[in-house]
């Protein structure tokens, strides 16, 4: 046996040991990381976390979609669905009912349908739904490219870049490291997004006046897929016996006034396509109707050209509850 062969054999032995340990370490690292994420259960997916310990820290679409697998269907009896216009509605003021605000920033009807489908497929305690409608929700213009609203997202909860971002943002928020950008309690445990401080503009009336001219006619066009998804949503809610209230978000009066024909027509149009029968389970209301115009004329109900202030939210929720009670 030559010296070279001896060295080679010794090295080969070392590499054999190294490779074996490496492969075992791969498996070990994977198991430790996976179980750590299950243990932390940041989205309440596995039922290891108390209801009031689960909240959104960031990556809102990702987080709320994952919450629809277990946390929302198992812990709440009502849900608010919609885009940012309804995302800051704080369901805390709904007395005697345990609502979760599932609304997400930039949500379109396909997102709302995906979230609702997942909540209802996971056989939970949800009995009521409030759906916020606005032309923004049903237009094809400017939709988010990455929506995470598919079952594959479930696997990302075991370890993904999105999950790491949530951890990172959780640390930033919990330790209040960047309060101006990521305030500590921006997301409440009921899902509502207290973004008022971040979104509020100084001159609300001026911003509304500016927006009057920014609204384009094609924004009122309902995308064919969104129309189909809206129908599916209503059918789904009805077939699951969910008491549903659909409302047209109250836009600031100057904007409504300048586009009232399109707005009114939009509301008729979006509802006309649905073949579900209104009755005990379904009702709707247009908060842009004249009887509610005092609300939309009052600038203090808004923080910008559409999102509601704390005062505005309170009034709107009260009105919604009154109208839902009338259903019952």
């Amino acid at each position: 046996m030559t010296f070279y062969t001896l060295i080679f054999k010794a090295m080969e032995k070392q590499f054999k040991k190294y490779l074996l340990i490496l492969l075992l370490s791969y498996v070990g690292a994977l198991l430790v990381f996976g179980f750590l994420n299950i243990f932390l259960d940041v989205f309440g997916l596995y039922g290891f976390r108390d209801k009031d310990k689960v909240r959104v820290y960031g990556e809102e679409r990702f987080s709320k979609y994952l919450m629809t697998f277990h946390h929302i269907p198992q812990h709440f009896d009502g849900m608010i669905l919609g885009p940012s216009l309804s995302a800051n509605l704080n369901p805390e003021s709904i007395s005697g009912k345990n609502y979760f605000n599932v609304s997400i920033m930039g949500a379109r009807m396909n997102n709302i349908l995906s979230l609702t489908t997942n909540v209802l497929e996971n056989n939970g305690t949800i009995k009521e739904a409030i759906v916020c409608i606005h032309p923004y929700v049903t237009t094809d213009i400017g939709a988010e490219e990455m929506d995470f609203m598919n079952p594959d997202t479930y696997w990302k909860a075991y370890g993904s870049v999105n999950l790491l971002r949530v951890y990172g943002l959780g640390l930033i928020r919990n330790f209040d490291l960047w309060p101006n950008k990521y305030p500590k309690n921006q997301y409440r445990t009921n899902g509502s997004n207290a973004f008022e401080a971040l979104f509020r503009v100084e001159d609300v009336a001026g911003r509304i006046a500016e927006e009057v001219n920014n609204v384009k006619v094609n924004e009122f066009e309902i995308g064919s897929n969104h129309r189909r998804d809206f129908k599916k949503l209503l059918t789904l809610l009805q077939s699951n016996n969910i008491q549903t209230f659909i409302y047209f978000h109250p836009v600031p009066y100057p904007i409504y006034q300048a586009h009232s024909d399109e707005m009114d027509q939009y509301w008729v149009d979006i509802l006309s396509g649905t073949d579900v029968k209104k009755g005990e389970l379904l009702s709707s209301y247009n908060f842009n109707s004249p009887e509610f115009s005092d609300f939309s004329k009052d600038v203090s109900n808004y923080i910008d050209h559409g999102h509601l202030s704390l005062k505005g939210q309170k009034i709107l929720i009260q009105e919604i509850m009154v109208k839902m009670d009338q259903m019952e």
Partner: protein
Amino acid sequence: MLFNSFEFLLGFLPVTLFVFYFFGPKLKSPFTGLWLLLCSLFFYGWWNPAYLILIFFSIAFNYLISKRIFPGQKKTLVFGISINLLALIFFKYTDFVIYNLNFIPDLSLGYLNLLLPLGISFYTFQQIAYLVDSYKGTKKEKNLFSYGLFVSFFPQLIAGPIVHHTEMMGQFRNPRLTNLNYDHLSRGVFIFMMGLAKKIVIADSFAKIANKGYANVTSLGSVEAWASSLAYSLQLYFDFSGYSAMAIGLGLLFNIKLPQNFNSPYKSLSIKDFWRNWHMTLSRFLRDYVYIPLGGNQKGNFRTSLNLMATFLLGGIWHGAGWTFMFWGFLHGIALVIHREWSKMGLVLPKIPALLLTFLFVNITWVFFRADSWNSSLGMLYRMFSRVPGMEDFYLVSNYYDLPVWIAGVVLLFVPNAIEMGRRLKPSITYLILNVLLFLLNVIYLNSIVKNDFLYFDF
């Protein structure tokens, strides 16, 4: 099947390796080769089974024609090369030819919109080299299946490295091929992990900026235009060198050593140096089968310059059917001619200006390589070299989540590359930890992203 897909990593690769090492020693060499051939064809057919017909034809034709090529039989060689080039031209360049013909007044030919068969540029060049080597009298392959394996070996089939018959067949015939070699396996795993991270962590992060920038050239300000072009330079490097590292790592898992394809090219101090370190196996092919046969540098100064230009024009058009690719090749050809003259004068730039100048030139020429059209390339360059404000409501970068990855990408350009690190690998705790961290990082990214194809699949 992409190297960075779960079906490859959890299905195809483990099964291929298991049969290779478990049954390989029990079966004799033709069967292990046959197994690798079958796996390679399955891998290739996964994208589109119809591609298999073309590669079958290509392998069979070249195998048969090579049998008839001997030193002095130039006609057969020319026939063989012509058929290969015609196939390549038909699939890759027909629409480009039609596009140019349509400039003739009153002519309006319809496009064929043919799907480019994956890897056709790579396996065509590899086989042309084989035919030329046969003409030169190099030992030929006697077995069709062995030849088929040389052409289709899955780690390098789609995007190289472009290999020589002589450097592969000896390895495939090695009687110890299916013996477990823990040194190769350890290095193979490490190099593969490094390549995978380069692709899915770094290249794909830069891709977000580059794709958005090149898709919205008219919205870019000057800073954003530079950011987009730099992001593409980094994306392309990490994407392609990552793929090559994965191929080399996979080769080692099967006891096959594939040639290095990248050697930290952005550290190059001249354009000549750059081409020694970028896509090294293509440069080798162009040198051996185009530049030298044209006369290389043996026929005077002017002819050398012409040969360089011709070689790089061909290199340009090989990358894509478009005038922008041709112009990219032209610019590199010109740069090499200028560098040659500069070197002859004995002038040497200091290290840092030389590095910056080389990188800057490469970065600017990538604009023609990446942009969809002349207008888009010129628009990007105009924005890079004039003070243009960006559009108010356009954000090239919408968040800074990827900032650590961008920093890591830039740092990685200046540290030893994946192959160098693979060579240095020792069975030590440091490498073990690095390897496990790389694995975890790759798993996290694999479980996160919408997968992007490798850029060189388009070439």
